[in-house]
């Protein structure tokens, strides 16, 4: 059970824009163990969604993968051709559940047909079977009256229902790994909780692993096995959930946790102000030093390396916190 299923090594993705090269991912190191759900947390613009897409070896134009490797089940997927990726990998081995589900559904096709299409794209089975499968999978994601709903167009569905359909589309080919990109975004709390429960149930049932990308530390604390903190295209800290919430090691993790409402009462001022560094002009040394309360002279000069503090708990900092 403790085999690593997904391993990303030193991944750099840059976007060449008019006035230079935006460095969006700057050496991502991340691994997910078989059967685990990893919560990936970071500010807006820290590169979470680009990282999510890169796990499917899909980079939006004008992005390019500068260097790095992504191993899925010990195979380097960046070495595969586009055709191999489409036929054998995307949707089949790794499924993406996107945020803003309605925008990810074809507005002119009934949702049942869309599910059937994704199914037959990988199984080459006749359409009829795909339709039956679509109704079946819609039932399993908790949609009442699935036969009728399969005939609905995306604009006829509520936000929560569209998100369930999105999950159904992803699950229909039973991928071994699920990338959920902020799939509770924009849903109200009760619906978000239902969607989360569903996702967890499915992961458990199928013994799949996954990455859950979110802003919400609360969901991470409840649902995930591990946490990774992302900042400016780097993973600052990765740890089992308990360790992380008990003793965060990175100064950024610390201020992030301090920003939670419960902790704010104790410490009304948030130390770190300002924004993420501009990806067009990244600072030298540690990317966090302009905002870091503990920054020292070394942080300005030298990029920190990954340090393993305890088994499964890694941090990228010169001066990690000691509790």
């Amino acid at each position: 059970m403790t085999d690593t299923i997904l391993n990303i090594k030193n991944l750099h993705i840059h976007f060449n824009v008019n006035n230079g090269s935006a460095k969006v991912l700057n050496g991502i190191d991340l691994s997910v163990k078989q059967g685990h759900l990893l919560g990936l947390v970071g500010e807006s613009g820290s590169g979470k969604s680009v990282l999510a897409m890169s796990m499917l070896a899909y980079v939006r134009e004008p992005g390019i993968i500068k260097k790095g490797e992504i191993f899925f089940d010990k195979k380097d997927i960046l070495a595969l051709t586009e055709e191999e990726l489409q036929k054998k990998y995307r949707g089949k081995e790794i499924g993406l559940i996107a945020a803003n589900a309605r925008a990810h559904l074809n507005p002119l096709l009934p949702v049942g047909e869309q599910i059937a299409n994704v199914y037959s794209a990988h199984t080459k089975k006749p359409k009829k079977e795909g339709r039956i499968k679509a109704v079946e999978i819609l039932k399993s994601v908790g949609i009442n009256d699935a036969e009728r709903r399969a005939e609905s167009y995306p604009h006829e569905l509520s936000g929560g229902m569209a998100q369930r359909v999105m999950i159904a589309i992803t699950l229909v080919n039973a991928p071994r790994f699920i990338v959920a990109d902020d799939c509770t975004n924009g849903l109200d709390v009760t619906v978000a909780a239902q969607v989360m429960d569903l996702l967890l149930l499915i992961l458990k049932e199928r013994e799949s692993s996954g990455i859950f990308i979110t802003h919400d530390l609360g969901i991470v604390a409840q649902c995930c096995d591990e946490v990774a903190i992302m900042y400016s295209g780097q993973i600052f800290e990765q740890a089992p959930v308990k360790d992380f919430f008990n003793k965060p090691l990175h100064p950024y993790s610390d201020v992030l946790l301090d920003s939670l409402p419960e902790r704010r009462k104790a410490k009304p001022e948030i130390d770190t102000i300002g924004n993420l560094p501009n990806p067009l002009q990244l600072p030298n040394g540690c990317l966090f030093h302009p905002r870091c309360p503990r920054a020292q002279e070394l942080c300005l000069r030298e990029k920190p390396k990954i340090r393993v503090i305890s088994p499964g708990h890694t941090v990228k900092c010169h001066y990690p916190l000691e509790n």
Partner: protein
Amino acid sequence: MKGINIFFRMLIKNLPGLIGSIIILIAVICALFAPLIAPYDPEKPITEDNRMPPNSQHIFGTDEIGMDIFSRIVYATRIDLTIGVLATLLSLSIGIPIGILVGFYEGLFGEIVMRLTDLIQAFPVFIFAMVLVAVLGNKMENIIAAITFLNAPIYLRLVRTEVLSIKGRQFIEAARCAGKSNYHIMFKELLPNSLKPALIQASVNVGWAILLTAGLSFIGAGIRVPTPEWGSMISLGADSIMTGQWWSSFFPGMAIMVTVLGFALFGDFLRTYFNPERR
């Protein structure tokens, strides 16, 4: 069929669309059952008394050669409608797939195709059509070919623009991430979503094609007398308008106007129909 039901339910509520489709329906019936509707032979003078004003026997009168105008108008729908519809269908079936390919792959191939369409569209349509028909010879097939050649770039451009904007939408990205093939993305995701403007344009274009055919025939580059065709009928009667015999140009002119209007109204209805949120 759910889709067809919705179509008719919407059509009944939409008065201009209903009028348009009734006009088109009448035109189609005229074309199909011309021998039953027309009282006289359209290609033979049936009376010595030419330029007879409208009366009970010849409701639209007779023309310069003594042919019954009503019969000729009815028979002419066969020619004009066939040219209009066939030319539009052909240009759709050429323009749309190329438009999708060009929009999807862009690159050098796309650039070359787009510059070629620029070249075609740089000429005034009517003059270009006239030259083409003059070179190919004025037969019906050649008129269809010329109109197809001139109209296909319109659809190509419409579909390409649409594909370019839809290509970046998230559901296309989602399709890619679900591992669908390029073929699937082009023809199952992009095609239905980029068809709307082309189909609306197509309905209007049937009218334009009829107008173009009539125009060509009017100047003598299209269908020739005595084959019944609206444009050539207008030109036949044009000389006698000044002397007060208005009917031999007026009725075929009305036929063109009403038919073109019918297709335009129907095209306008399609615009409403293809907006799924308004269903």
